[in-house]
């Protein structure tokens, strides 16, 4: 597969591994946060760990829109399907995530709610067209990558007059989340100091460009490399970060030049700006309330806003007790630091979103590396 297979080549991986081994200074540690779950997934699925020296460490960030959605929003989605009787369309990723009382959309569906997995907002629009007598709500989740397709669907619904379609908007923004990790001292005062650089989100930057991450270098003096999601992309980006650190440079570099430019996709940005506006603040699992970190549907498009169309009840939503997802999402703990990992919490009985999302750190450790993790836990 063009632009994929080449970036999984074993010989090139060896070359990069050798270069990293040479570049990495054995006298120090390199702690790089991969903001994105996509990077986490690639690192684990391909065993990138095994090709970098032990002093090059990956710190997993909050870049999984499934993981950071708080239980309350999921409970709201279930309420839409169960109490308001809508057809709730969701990407497959959300179906197994536990809300309050570990109840997921999949369980709500088994109990009779009309919940449909879609691959695209295009399919959700088709469902709305095919069921004019029913309310169809699309559960919008995702970062800047996934937001334009939601915006396009709302624009299309308005153009066609699809009156039974709306979006329950949970779209969030990456730069404010990264800033929050570095800036808000109560999160973890030592964290900012510990991080030596960032692997920047590549598909987010396909839309917003690399420019929005320049503040990281400029204001927080953290090197950034916008990194592709294939394993060789990750390795090359690691090499680029090591070199920045070694050379004392602090720049936003772009490894993923085949897709990312500094400006991104202006057309998509404009569409998003037309349909959505900033929420003053939004609750992130792990990060708490983060100002200016999420989008809401503009008043002009209120007819397509599920939060305006349906009265959502007050809830006593609760995350699962003693789940360490919040700390893991901030990068201050690892899955092995959660005493539920591999015991009460497995992908079949997930206690937190980090275990259920394929991009979650706990799921990655479980699926691809639980041997080492369980051994470390036993040793501690």
């Amino acid at each position: 597969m063009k632009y994929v297979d080449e970036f999984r080549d074993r010989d090139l991986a060896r070359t990069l591994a050798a270069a990293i081994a040479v570049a990495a200074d054995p006298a120090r540690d390199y702690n790089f946060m991969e903001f994105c779950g996509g990077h986490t997934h690639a690192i684990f699925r391909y065993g990138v760990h095994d090709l970098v020296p032990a002093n090059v460490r990956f710190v997993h960030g909050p870049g999984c829109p499934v993981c950071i959605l708080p239980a309350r929003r999921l409970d709201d989605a279930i309420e839409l399907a169960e109490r308001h009787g809508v057809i709730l369309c969701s990407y497959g990723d959300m179906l197994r995530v536990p809300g309050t009382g570990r109840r997921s959309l999949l369980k709500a569906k088994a109990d009779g709610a009309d919940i449909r997995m879609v691959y695209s907002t295009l399919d959700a629009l088709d469902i709305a067209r095919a069921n004019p007598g029913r309310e169809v709500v699309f559960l919008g989740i995702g970062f800047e990558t996934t937001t334009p397709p939601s915006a396009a669907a709302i624009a299309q619904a308005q153009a066609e007059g699809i009156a039974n379609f709306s979006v329950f908007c949970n779209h969030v923004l990456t730069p404010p989340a990264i800033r929050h990790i570095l800036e808000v001292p109560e999160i973890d005062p030592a964290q900012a100091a510990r991080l030596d650089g960032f692997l920047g989100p590549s598909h987010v930057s396909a839309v917003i460009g690399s420019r929005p991450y320049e503040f990281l270098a400029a204001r927080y003096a953290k090197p950034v490399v916008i990194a592709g999601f294939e394993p060789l992309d990750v390795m090359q980006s690691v090499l680029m970060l090591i070199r920045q650190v070694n050379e004392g440079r602090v720049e936003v570099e772009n490894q993923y030049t085949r897709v990312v430019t500094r400006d991104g996709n202006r057309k998509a940005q404009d569409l998003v700006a037309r349909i959505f506006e900033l929420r003053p603040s939004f609750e992130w699992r792990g990060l708490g309330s983060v100002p200016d970190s999420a989008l809401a549907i503009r008043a002009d498009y209120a007819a397509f806003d599920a939060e305006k169309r349906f009265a959502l009840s007050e809830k006593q939503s609760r995350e699962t007790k003693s789940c360490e997802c919040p700390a893991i999402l901030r990068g201050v703990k690892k899955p092995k630091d959660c005493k539920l990992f591999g015991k009460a919490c497995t992908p079949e009985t997930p206690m937190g979103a980090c275990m259920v999302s394929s991009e979650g750190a706990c799921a990655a450790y479980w699926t691809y590396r639980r041997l080492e993790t369980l051994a470390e836990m036993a040793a501690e």
Partner: protein
Amino acid sequence: MCLAIPALVTELHDGAMASVSVGGIAKQISVALLDAVAVGDYVLLHVGYALHRVSEEEARRTLAMMAEAGLLQAEVAEMAQTTGLAGGAS
């Protein structure tokens, strides 16, 4: 996050739709988020929408840099300039 994959545009349709080939798999997608998509372009496909064009030349350059990873110091800087990025502080 954000599973996305390169797709080759094989046909353009009304309503900003296009046929693409994803490694030999034919699929209908929306190109409403991109201007001036042409048959033969590679685009980055995410949840049924093309998000950006994929640059063949840049891909080749990236692979070449990987192959010469050991010798790359100079080129990294060059690459950063070419793409108008690397507006770092430091």
